[in-house]
């Protein structure tokens, strides 16, 4: 598996591949328990909540992007309708100038909320997840298939950490 490993990473460290989720979690818990917690990246084929719990992530910031987008959307939607109506009031269906058909504009406001909310969410995901990131590297194609990977930065081969990684899965050391 590790033969598929790609170019040399910019930083030194140990890369380990695991077959089992519980092994991975055990390693992560061990890493996080360390007093001077080392920097590490976890690669996973899909999102397991156990993994996230082990990593102790705070709620994602994507929600603020969603909220901003949605608020922008609702404002824009209603503003578009009301301002164009104000700009040139044309009488249709007996509604005189100055009758702002708010119920009709709810649809536009709603659609714009969803649209910009969705776009905001996507932007948030991309921004926070650092995607697209041409410089970002994957170390093994197996992590998009069925393996879990952990890259622990600035770890030397002989350390206790490296031994732990070796014990649970295959490792590759970069120096």
């Amino acid at each position, binding site marked *: 598996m590790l033969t598929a490993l790609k170019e040399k990473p910019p930083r030194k460290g140990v890369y380990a591949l695991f077959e089992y989720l519980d092994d991975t979690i055990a390693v992560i818990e061990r890493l996080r328990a360390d007093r001077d917690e080392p920097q590490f990246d976890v690669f996973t084929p899909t999102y397991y909540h156990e993994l996230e719990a082990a990593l102790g992530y705070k709620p994602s910031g994507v929600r603020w992007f969603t909220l901003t987008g949605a608020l922008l959307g609702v404002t824009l939607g209603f503003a578009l309708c009301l301002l164009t109506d104000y700009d040139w009031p*044309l*009488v*249709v*269906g*007996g*509604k*005189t*100038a*100055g*009758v702002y058909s708010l119920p009709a504009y709810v649809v536009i406001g709603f659609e714009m909320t969803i649209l910009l909310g969705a776009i905001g969410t996507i932007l948030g995901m991309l921004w926070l997840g650092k995607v697209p990131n041409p410089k970002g590297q994957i170390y093994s194609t197996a992590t998009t298939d069925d393996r879990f990977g952990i890259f622990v930065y600035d770890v030397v081969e002989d350390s206790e950490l490296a031994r732990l990684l070796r014990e649970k899965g295959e490792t590759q050391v970069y120096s």
Partner: protein
Amino acid sequence: MPQNQRYSLADDVCADVAASPETEKNTKAALGRRDFLKYFSAGVALASSSCVRRPAEHAIPYVDQPVDQVPGVATYYATTCSGCASGCGINVKTRAGRPVKIEGNPDHRSTGGALCPLGQAALQGLYHPERRPQPLVRRGDQLGEVSWDDVYLHLSSRLNTNKVGIFTGGTTGHRAEFLQEFLQKLGAPRENLYRYEPNLLYAHVADAHQRAFGRYVIPRCDFTAAELIVGIGSDFLDQGLARVAYAKNFSAARDLNREHPAQLVQLESTLSLTGARADERIVIAPGTEIDVALALAQALYRQPQAQGGVAERQKIAALLQQHQVALAPDLQQHIATLAVQLVQKPSVVLCGGSHTFDANAAALQQIAIAINILCGAYENALSVQRGWQIPPVGSDDLQRFSRDVAQLDVLFVIDSDPLFTLPAAFGWAEKIKNVKHVISMQAFPVATDSLATHVLPVHHFLEAWGDAQTHAGQWTTQQPVVRPLTDSRQAEDVLLWLLATVKKPLPYADYRSYLRQRWQAWHDLQGDGKDFAKFYHTTLTRGTFTHQKQQARRELRAFEVKVQQVPAGLKLTAPLDNRLHDGRGAHLPVLQEVGDSLTTIAWDTWVALSIKTAARLGLRRNDVLQLKTASGVLRAALFPLPGLHDDAVVVPRGNGHRHGFSKVTDGIGVDPLVVCAVAEGLPLTAALPVTLTRTGKTYRLAAMQKENKLGDRGDIVKSLSLAQLRQHQNKVRDLDAVPDLYPKLEEGEHRWGLSVDLHKCIGCSACMVACAQENNVPQVGRSQVAMGREMHWIRLDRYFSGDADKPRVTMQPMMCQQCNHAPCEAVCPVYATTHDAEGINAMTYNRCVGTRYCANACPYKVRRFNWWTHKWNVIDAKDYNRNPRALNPDVTVRTRGVMEKCNFCYQRIRDGKHQAKMAGRAVQDGEIKTACQETCPADAITFGNLLDAGSKITQQRRDYRAYLALGGYPDIKEYGLKTLPNVSYLAEVTLQEEGSDEHG
């Protein structure tokens, strides 16, 4: 249109446009002028161009601009319509020398500015692309094109004979006199002028009066003097003697402001427009009109209050004793009741029409005289003393023609198509076999041309000089309103030049100077001392000249009537079509497309049978039937029509022109004249025994209306009885008092409204033709009409109600209702249709993207979509032959993918407002008229400013009869769709006591 804007074409005013074929220079100038107009009226092809830089547009100014012409400003000329023998005065609107719209001349007393569909459509005849470009001369079997010089050369050697005859249509002006002078000059007898009108009523009525009073006249009927009008097979609203004048007058007589609005009782075997409008309609067997008339005369004679002098009564008694009639008891009863009413009220009885041209047609008119004497009509509604009608034909012209034609060497056929308009049984082609030279002079190629040795294109009446005298003392003048569009000549001028070439000249340079000389007599009559030139100018400008003529009433002579018995069984009637007449309108797409008012069939000939007969024979609509009479065989598709007598088989005339007559008519309809007979030299087109066979084929008739009944939809057409109306007459309605969530619409100076009086509408469809002409509405052709894609901005909905044997017929002109709460406006995504501050539902064609949502939302379905770009001057695809020159330059032409609809003739509103603004005054009531309103012969349409409390439209909207279509029942606080239209309808009023419907 103000009086002072009209111009005469007297030479001192506008020499440039006067017709004088020799001047080459003018022809070229006219070409330039035509191109010039292009820039006003060019198509909108560029609207669809996808890049910025369009093809460059050009402007071609005059070389010598006539002094009275301002480019972009319309000029109006008064002239006379020669569509039929009625001779209605018309005003022609021209732009840059080109006629763009025809209106009735309000100065013409009897028509008062109204016009019929045929007159409205004359523009299409003028601009018809199939008009002959030059004369033809027969060489062997072929007609070859020649120049006019060749024609004169050719004919001069052949005119050295006195065996000359002229066959022409009915005419009331100086033309007949001129033609007789021409014959005389050649040494032929004056009697060699044969005038033939397919509407035989003129001849029959005049002939009957000749026999009865010794005077060859047609009495003029004034319905306003009558309270009861009885028609026996009469068609005075369809064709009759003077369609527009009679409709106008009838409408006035029915006015509900009169104490006793005239009531119409019609006895007929077929369903005519007149019958459809009748307050009471009694169905009688075809061919029994004469029996009914005799029975009525007898019943009247028995009435003690019957009118008539002693001598007259004696003569009538003698006449009636000879004839015994046996009618069904209930019909006899009806007649007896009618007779009582006839003598009690001022009344008039009109007999006969194109539905009754059977063997007894002439006798019917004589009985009619007896009836009218007995009911006192000659002292009252019928007048042979004041303003009697001039018969446009001679009494025995056709018989004389049949007798003389074998002796003729040369026969001129002028503006008449005897080969098509006479039954095949007449044998016109056989009769003229020995005539060496047949010279056909026609404004449009006709069937007769195929038998002619010389075919000469003559002016359309809008290019020609002439005059007409429909009523004694009431003249209308005819002047050219456009330079000839083809290399045609004035027919009379051709005759003058022919005389000159054979060295027997008449002392007139041309027909115009002949007329000028005749009109001198009017000047003498008027005797107001003005010089003639001025009189001539003002008369031409005005278009009419009237002076009183009176004559004493003569005593009735003893007269005899021969009555032929008609056997029982199915009988064929071939009436004149109320749009196409005898077929003279068949090449005009606009007339074909408005469709028959009663069947709503466009572009076709149909066989109408009563519902019962069709059911009895197991026939369904669109089944092709074969009709066989003694004279021939005919095939046409069936349309079961309510209200026909079970023995009646009705096939309208007008269509079925031979192949090649016009691309418009190719393959359209059949000609019932092939199965009609001739008796005593006259065509018989009614009550012909006929047998029907089913062919097993079907043919889909293009009927525009699919549903004929209203069912229980009570807020579309409303009606009430006269008693109800009288009871509530003083109540004022406020149709606009409808509860509404929104604030009231802002109101400017005007709020335009239109009102349609269903009580007055006679269903003539003139409004549809006028609208099409005014608003550049395209004609789409048979196949598209069959699909439901006609483009009429105003359509005529016709509903039958009640019994299929005795249906009540309702006509409802339906156009955009200009709703204040328009369902169409709110749904348009691009604001292509919005509400105008003046109450008009504006349609912005160029903004329309064609989602057609507005049309779906419209509950009246009055919006029309351009499914194609309707082509302009293409005749090859016969369905699309509008001529761009005839377009109204004030109205945008629409291309494919665009919605359109009625906009109250906004161009006219705009024009009227400009006029008022220039004059520094407010728009006056009645100053602005919509096209439909202006032409309506029944005065059923009113238009005006709803904010003007004194205007006629405001009064009509407040009338007790007023209602809004689909406006629910405001009396019980039920407001229907709440679309709040600016168009209101006035409910029909049943003048009969019985069978009144609820209103409210």
